[in-house]
């Protein structure tokens, strides 16, 4: 395991009695180190997540449109996707190191892969959500295939697509913590540093951990709101 750059190690020697005594939670430490430890890592974490889900979504969407009408291919891709998802994040990060070094690329390739694997089946399921009689009606009204897709199937797929995005974003935020094993990347890094102290520094673990969970839940909430805005008719009886 390698850590690049100069690690920011909490100094047990000085600081408040709370920090030196490693009490459960020291607000003072959080305030003092928000600017140099927590906030930059939070921004990195958001960046890692957005890039991964963005690229993953673009690829998954294109793949889903391509395979929308070919069920056999979809089964195969589904199986491959499930197998891909079994690849442990820590392992795949390390395996990519000889190729891309300790870079963001090394981190993003698996993250994109994981989100792709989650998004693809959900988008395909969404595109298939249109009831047959609705499709029939659209065709009877003179819609062409492309129009059916754009004006009937895609709008009806929005809830499933956003459902997939919720899982993908929350999972990516969570998996991105493992990127810290490759160096200063994301909110996992302060946690990893704190864990390597002879006595793990609790405030750092708790504060960074809370930030990760809060980030995931915030993203989830934003997507729920987005769904309500885009498809108001699903509001009844759903979470």
């Amino acid at each position, binding site marked *: 395991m390698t850590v690049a750059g100069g690690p920011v190690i909490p100094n047990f020697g000085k600081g408040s009695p709370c920090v030196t005594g490693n009490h459960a939670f020291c607000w003072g430490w959080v305030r003092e180190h928000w600017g140099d430890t927590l906030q930059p890592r939070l921004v990195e974490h958001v960046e890692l997540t957005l890039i991964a889900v963005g690229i993953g979504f673009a690829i998954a969407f294109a793949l889903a449109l391509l395979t929308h009408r070919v069920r056999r291919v979809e089964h195969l891709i589904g199986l491959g*996707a499930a197998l891909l998802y079994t690849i442990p994040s820590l*392992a795949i990060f390390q395996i990519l*190191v000889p190729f891309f070094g300790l870079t963001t690329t090394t981190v993003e390739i698996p993250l994109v892969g994981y989100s792709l694997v989650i998004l693809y*089946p959900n988008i395909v399921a969404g595109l298939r959500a249109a009831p047959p009689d609705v499709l029939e009606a659209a065709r009877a009204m003179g819609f062409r295939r492309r129009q059916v897709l754009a004006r009937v199937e895609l709008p009806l797929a929005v*809830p499933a697509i956003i459902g997939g995005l919720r*899982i993908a974003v929350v999972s990516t935020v969570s998996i991105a913590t493992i990127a810290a094993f490759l160096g200063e990347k994301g909110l996992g890094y302060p946690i990893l540093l704190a864990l390597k102290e002879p006595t793990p520094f609790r405030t750092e*673990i*708790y504060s960074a*951990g809370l930030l*990760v969970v809060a980030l995931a839940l915030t993203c989830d909430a934003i997507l729920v709101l987005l769904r309500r805005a885009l498809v108001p008719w699903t509001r009844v009886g759903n979470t």
Partner: protein
Amino acid sequence: MICDAANAHTFVEALRFIGDHPGVLATKALEQLELSGAALGIALAVALPLGVALGHFHKGSGLAIGASIFGRALPSLVLIGVFLTVLGIGFVNNMLALAVLATGPVLTNAFDGVDGVDRDVVEAARGMGMARVQILRRVELPLATPLLFTGIRVAAVTVVATAPVAAIAGGGGLGDIIVNQASYRLEGVIGASLCVMALSAGVWLVLLGVQVAATPKPLRGARVMEIVEPRKEMA
């Protein structure tokens, strides 16, 4: 930066590492399976009865959905870190942290599986004079098998794949090699990573086999292969 360029040589070295140290790797892999098995066992003992019971009574869908969202939102590293600060370094903290990770998919899928059984079928069983326990054992559980096992499989793979992270908190296993590049060098790290990959893919395949075998014959086929993540959040 340690090495930037594409480096096939490192892979040859990594494979050589695997060939040279089969004993160490096997021991570490067994350690990892032990930790994973213990964690999965705890999760199953807690989440399976709970999910099945809630599904049977069609109550607590909020809990099931919450478990799936929170289970995903809690990063393994955070869980391991928090449990370490509470319980100290070693086997127990890692076992519990991994057990928490495994609880989400097991609970959600057990609930979805039993809750989703066609009400008419249950009604018919009741009409035939079946008691509650009989309905659960002979109707609901067999019909829920595909989803139920998918949950267990997802949980098992999550645990096996996450266990290397636990090495940072004294969890042992192949992660010991992965987080210790200073002793094992990059080829050792990559060799162990390849073994971890093989291990979790192996667990996935074995459990898929068990799932197919455990699924009542008429239910086999398309539904068994549905590997899509829980559908609950989609609707």
